[in-house]
């Protein structure tokens, strides 16, 4: 049970920002690994192009290429398919090639990746969580 990530308050906070519906957030949780991978005290924002959107469990992952120099590929993780589809996400919510602004809680080890706070693509904002 150590790898359970309900993060409900965090998600509810994020919902205030999102443009998709968050009014009926179910009391579901993510799992798989600890939040301790990420530095919850920091928020980083990047702008880039979505290289891949992995609609997978236990976590959905968004790969974002950020132009340099030096150019970098960020791996941004968020909740499970099952939890996020209950908040309005779909397998088509994000597409490769789209330009996105992404904010996230960075990996503690300094590598290019983190836990999604929110992703903006045009006028659409999707919140992480679940």
């Amino acid at each position, binding site marked *: 049970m150590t790898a359970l990530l309900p993060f409900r308050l965090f998600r509810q906070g994020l919902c205030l920002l999102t443009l998709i519906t968050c009014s009926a957030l179910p009391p579901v949780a993510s799992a798989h690994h600890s939040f301790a991978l990420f530095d919850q005290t920091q928020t980083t924002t990047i702008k880039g192009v979505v290289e891949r959107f992995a609609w997978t469990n236990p976590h959905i992952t968004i790969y974002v290429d950020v132009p340099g120099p030096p150019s970098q590929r960020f791996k941004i*993780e968020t909740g499970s398919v099952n939890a996020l589809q209950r908040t309005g996400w779909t397998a088509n919510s994000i597409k490769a090639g789209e330009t996105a602004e992404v904010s996230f809680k960075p990996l503690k080890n300094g590598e290019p990746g983190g836990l999604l706070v929110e992703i903006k693509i045009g006028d659409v904002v999707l919140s992480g969580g679940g």
Partner: protein
Amino acid sequence: MKPARTTHTAMLLLGVVLATFAGMSSAATASKTQTDRHSVATRPDISGTWERTPDDWFGENPDDPVHPGGPMDLKASYAAEYAELKKKEAVANAAGTPIATTSSRCLPEGMPTMMAALFPIQIIRDDKQVIILGEYLQQVRRILLNQAMPPTDELDPKYQGHSRGHWEGDTLVVETQRVRTDVRFYDVPHGPAMKITERIRLRGPDHLENQVLIEDPQVLNTPYRFTFEYKRSNYAIQEYVCENNQIVIDSEGKASLSLE
């Protein structure tokens, strides 16, 4: 006339006896219908999809979840082992390399964690069995009704153990044994003789209660008791295939995010 009267009396007595038997038989039939263990229609309808309630059941910190029955009364060596593990976890968490768990490897939660319903659960039942499906990791639990638990040495260890159940009035009583000893409940190990007893009943049409008792002579000084409560849900449970495509686990069992 005496013999005739005697015959008449005997006939009357026979009639009374027969009528009595007939009544008893009829009463027995009615009683059997009401208490028939094999008639699913006579039992409270616990089938459906359920989610834990209240919503804040998990607590605030995902890395330190609330134990449902308070601290467990662990035997000294296990208490020391647990304290040591918590220290080790804290150091690993601070370093950003949390210790991998079975769920990091996409393995089932096992019993009794599955019944904590981190994700929704669905109960399906018929006269012979109660099936519980957990959305998380597509876990399945089979409770066979009105069958004796086989001798322990004939049971292979399983993630969900082996469950046998029967109805006691409005309550489904389920005993589970032989849960694999690598299954953990809130990071606490258990011995091969752990026995879980659940008393599951509807507290209202849309409110399910599961009173759980864990007895484990190897690990616990005293039995551990808690109650899981669930609310009925109209959510349709979805596929959950765990691909484990994001985590790398090193030789020390510490997890990091794969950048592949």
